[in-house]
């Protein structure tokens, strides 16, 4: 487990750059992802490969201000505009793809368009429908400068960044349902009438999903699982599946809450691509502020985090529909 201290970015005069990029938005077809957020889209592979990926630097009426902020930012940090550029990278996790998809020097801002089509030609990172992709837009230092306190000087140092994440319904399931047989109950040392059991199976919810050889397993009584598979349109079935999903989430949240040191040393950004990070995103939604609030709850009051999960799943509706027999 990493015990690294977090790297501090000791530069001054970056506020204009940060404000400018924070307004940018990524369009994936008709779906929109604000800066420093991620969205999950329900999509088939064919459509995924056809959708345009467009970066909008700022709303149309604010584009002039966006350009102005970049110009002021270069002055504030004391670096020649010719030595700075906007660069955009597209990434996809399973195949560890990083494609450099856009560059514009800050000395050429008069040629900057409010929208940039990043998908023409389509880079490799946008061809991975199961993994989805991340887009990172940076203000980057293009050449080495004389070292100077509180000013970036090493080539490649980023002065501001906006990140956009797009995951898909084709992606990896968070857990694998496995029929729970009598033999497995014995092997797992479970009571004879155990109906469900979450087994992390060496999976670490705080480490990136893509680097781990195992997925968590949700064991479900084999007869029950067969019934669920046979009657998947009923309200009762739906409620039971939601209940099991909530069991899974609860197990993970309690598991990580017992690892206070590991949890506390990780920021929200550190958890990107991990099981916990994915659960937080699905429960809290795209807002980083909401996600941070939920992470804080996982650290301090995991039982309250579970309540948020229950609300996100809309357990109430599922239970009422089940009792009323509303099969839709």
């Amino acid at each position: 487990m990493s015990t690294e201290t977090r790297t501090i970015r000791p530069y001054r005069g970056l506020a204009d750059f940060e404000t400018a990029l924070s307004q940018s938005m990524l369009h994936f077809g008709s779906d929109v992802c604000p800066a420093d957020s991620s969205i999950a889209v329900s999509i088939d592979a064919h459509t995924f490969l056809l959708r345009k990926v467009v970066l909008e630097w700022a709303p149309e009426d604010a584009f002039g201000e966006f350009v102005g902020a970049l110009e002021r930012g270069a002055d504030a940090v004391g670096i020649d505009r010719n030595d700075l550029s906007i660069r955009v990278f597209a990434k996809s996790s399973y195949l560890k793809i990083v494609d450099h998809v856009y560059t514009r020097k800050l000395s050429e801002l008069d040629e900057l368009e409010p929208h940039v089509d990043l998908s023409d030609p389509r880079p490799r990172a946008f061809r991975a429908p199961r993994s989805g992709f991340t887009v990172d837009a940076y203000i980057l230092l293009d050449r080495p400068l004389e070292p100077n306190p509180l000013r970036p000087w090493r080539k490649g140092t980023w002065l501001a960044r906006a990140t956009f994440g797009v995951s898909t319904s084709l992606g990896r399931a968070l857990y694998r349902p496995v029929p729970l047989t009598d033999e497995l109950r014995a092997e797992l040392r479970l009571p004879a009438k155990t109906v469900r059991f979450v087994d992390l199976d060496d999976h670490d919810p705080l480490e990136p999903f893509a680097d781990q050889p195992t997925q968590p397993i949700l064991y479900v009584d084999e007869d029950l699982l067969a019934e669920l598979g046979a009657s998947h349109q009923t309200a009762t079935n739906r409620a039971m599946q939601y209940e099991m999903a909530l069991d899974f989430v609860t197990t993970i949240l309690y598991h990580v809450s017992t690892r206070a040191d590991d949890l506390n040393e990780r920021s929200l950004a550190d958890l990107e691509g991990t099981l916990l990070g994915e659960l937080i995103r699905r429960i809290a939604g795209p807002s980083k502020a909401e996600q941070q609030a939920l992470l804080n709850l996982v650290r301090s009051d995991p039982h309250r985090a579970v309540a948020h999960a229950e609300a996100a799943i809309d357990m109430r509706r599922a239970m009422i529909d089940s009792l009323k027999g509303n099969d839709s």
Partner: protein
Amino acid sequence: MRYPVLPLNVTEQLAKRKYDGYDDPLEPHVTWVGDGEDLSLTPIAECAQRLTSEVAVLPDDVDRDREEGRAALALYEALSHVPIEVLDDPGFWRFLALRYFWDFIRWREAKPFANGNIGKYVNGVSSTESVLPRMYLRAKALDGASDPSLAWALESATDFWRSHVIRVQTGSAPAVTAAFARSQRDARLGTDNGLRELAKLLNRSWTNIVMHVYDEIEAAAFIDELRDRVTELDQGDV
């Protein structure tokens, strides 16, 4: 493009039985997914056949990681016609593992297989653990670099490639990967004798620096600088 996939649970069960000597047919479990033309599997099958016959005659104590590096380049070339959306599907890697590369993978991971640890090397769940995708990533980590044969230039370098290259951002930057591998080739640091510290410094540097804009010369200068820092840290400890 239509391509074959195998489901996860079935793959792990079949792999265990295969290791135990059963030759269950694969075809009932294979699904072809996607639209359009069928993916040509011939170059991949030929590559597997070649690699399998090459390792079959190697002495038992050969450096298997190094052979994996050499084979990685051949596999990468054999997959050059396969669209990214196919390679992004773990089910496709599972199919390749059991249909064509079983003997090679069993040779490469003979020790864990003997301990019953088989699934993770064939299931495609982790692209950095399963043998075929991790080989692909190793070759891809040097795609465009001046010397792709660096993929097998280091002796007994399993930890270097898996922990310090393909699992971290370095593996997505061929110039940095090449500089790092070349630096290890020319003046090797032991895992507990500088390499871990160097890798930690490099990983931490990615937090502030986008090294994808470095060429090999710039990357080499940066790696040298970090090596000097490791040496200073080491001397400071004494």
